[in-house]
């Protein structure tokens, strides 16, 4: 029974390894990928359903007793995120067939893609801080491979910076974990949560908390450590940008959420105050970036940053409402970012340029693409009835309830500016006279709309079906405020 917890990691890992050996036979690789992403989605959905119904599944790797071995904790939060990550992986797998050139497909795109999913699932599921580092490395190394795939000049230029920054923050992560081990004597998250209150070392622990925040802020693109993100996310092909934009930064946000709701909750006036301030700056600077450019891919990449700001705001406010909002927004943002990258990728493929000033009138020939983009834009900005609305509503309500009026207002204004930044794409790109300088070779958009539509269905479902999802999310948030449930399920037996 408890072995179920490792399946979301094991399936993509094994698939990835098998695909490496089948590399020469591309049709077979495509077929296996297609089947395995669907199988994986089905499996994680069943596990998630099981977890939400019957409670957390804990796997003790190698059957070591709890504080000594590695534990995998499939709690409702982790499983919801794993399911969402697998939704993205299904959409990306089907988008990849249509959008990648064969050269890139042959050079191990599919194995790296599967390993990335394995790393992301692992990072969500692990209950051990050092193991979190290991899964971070798994997903980062896969992402290093993906970001240089194809080997164009720009890719090499930007990916080198991406790798150095991530490497630096990983080393800081290891160092911080060893600091924490020296102070508290464990790396198991549940035991950390128990002991941090007992050891009476507030000063050192707060320092360690801030060091960890720096690490996760680099991975999650928080102000002022987001500078590496926009460019390195726009140089690889669309499907890889979508994967990165949807999953990688969210893993960083998830880690902040986990660590600052479970472990470092004893000095809220310092740690969570810092989170609030950073959230405010992240919101403002991210959206300014999104408004500052005419490159459509860059606009979407910049829009990742204010979304991270919202989630960090929810964590900083640290009330049940705001945390529920954060979880909701996390689910929403993974889906909508992938969908937006897909749609913008289709726009770029259609018009042959990523410069907004050279686009126009796409809706005349591609009405479906246009309207899907319109829906995605509204969902991103958080208009009802789409999923973004619920998350933002809860986060901002939490902020106002706890008296963070300035941040609440910043959040509202940012929301409007986000709408402006994406509607600008809609108005300039889809309306107006068609500037059809592109050479029509077949239909470049064909097959790219379906994965985006697939994801947008879930955006609408998350928005309209909030009544079904919200109770689960609220339970998760309540358990985060009072993590006794998580600790008990890991530490007992």
């Amino acid at each position, binding site marked *: 029974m408890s072995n179920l917890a490792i399946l979301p990691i094991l399936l993509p890992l094994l698939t990835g390894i098998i695909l490496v050996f089948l590399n020469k036979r591309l049709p077979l690789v495509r077929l296996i990928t297609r089947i395995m992403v669907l199988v994986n989605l089905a499996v994680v959905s069943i596990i998630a359903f099981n977890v939400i119904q019957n409670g957390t599944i804990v796997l003790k790797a190698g059957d070591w007793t709890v504080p000594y071995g590695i534990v995998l904790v499939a709690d409702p939060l982790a499983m919801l995120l794993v399911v969402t990550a697998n939704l993205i992986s299904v959409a990306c797998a089907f988008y990849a067939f249509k959008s990648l050139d064969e050269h890139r497909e042959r050079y191990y795109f599919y194995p790296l893609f599967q390993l990335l999913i394995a790393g992301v699932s692992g990072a969500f599921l692990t209950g051990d801080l050092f193991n979190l580092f290991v899964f971070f490395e798994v997903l980062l*190394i896969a992402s290093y491979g993906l970001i*240089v795939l194809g080997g164009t000049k720009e890719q090499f230029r930007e990916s080198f910076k991406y*790798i150095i920054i991530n490497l630096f923050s990983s080393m800081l992560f290891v*160092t911080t974990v060893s600091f924490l081990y020296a102070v508290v004597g464990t790396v198991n998250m549940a035991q950390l949560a128990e002991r941090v209150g007992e050891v009476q070392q507030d000063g050192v622990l707060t320092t360690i908390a801030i060091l960890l925040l720096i690490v996760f802020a680099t991975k999650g693109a928080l102000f002022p450590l987001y500078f590496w993100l926009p460019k390195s996310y726009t140089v690889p092909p669309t499907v890889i940008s979508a994967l990165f934009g949807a999953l990688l930064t969210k893993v960083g946000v998830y880690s902040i959420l986990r660590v600052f709701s479970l472990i470092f909750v004893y000095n809220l006036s310092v740690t969570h105050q810092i989170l609030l301030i950073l959230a405010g700056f992240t919101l403002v600077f991210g959206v300014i970036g999104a408004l500052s450019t005419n490159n459509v891919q860059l606009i979407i990449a910049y829009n990742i940053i204010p979304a991270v700001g919202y989630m960090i705001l929810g964590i900083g406010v640290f009330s049940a409402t705001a945390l529920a909002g954060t979880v909701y927004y996390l689910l929403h943002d993974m889906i909508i970012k992938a969908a937006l990258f897909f749609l913008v990728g289709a726009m770029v493929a259609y018009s042959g340029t990523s410069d907004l000033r050279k686009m126009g009138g796409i809706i005349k020939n591609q009405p479906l693409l246009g309207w899907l983009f319109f829906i995605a834009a509204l969902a991103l900005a958080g208009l009802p009835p789409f999923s973004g609305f619920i998350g933002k509503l809860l986060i901002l309500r939490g902020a106002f309830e706890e008296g963070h009026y300035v941040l609440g207002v910043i959040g509202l204004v940012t929301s409007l500016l986000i709408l402006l930044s994406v509607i600008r794409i809609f108005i300039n790109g889809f309306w107006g006279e068609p500037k059809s300088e592109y050479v029509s070779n077949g239909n470049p958009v064909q097959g790219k709309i379906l994965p985006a539509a697939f994801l947008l269905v879930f955006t609408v479902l998350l928005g309209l079906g909030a009544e079904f999802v919200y109770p689960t999310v609220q339970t998760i948030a309540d358990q985060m405020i009072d993590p006794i449930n998580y600790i008990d399920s890991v530490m007992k037996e």
Partner: protein
Amino acid sequence: MEIIMSILAGMLFTAGVYMILQKQILKIIIGTALLSHGAHLFIITMGKLNRGKPPILSEGVTNYVDPLPQALILTSIVISFGVTSFLLVLAYRTYQTNGTDNMEKLRGNENE
């Protein structure tokens, strides 16, 4: 002993950070290697340095070294080894494709 090791780790960090801030790609890679050495040294120091004792807790053995940092450091060494070798290949390809190994010249806005 722990103090000396901590200072040594600190020196490695300093040198690593200095090297990362250089312009030449190869120097940056050496910097990351130094940095990871510093981090590894630091992990082993954090578990207390006891010489000549086994990292095993079994019945009857009261004198033992904390085995966990040793497990952590091993994992971390393997990872940083892999990443460093990847970086070296990447640096070579970056140099070949872009025709320079100077980070100052590796910035630009051609895509905008």
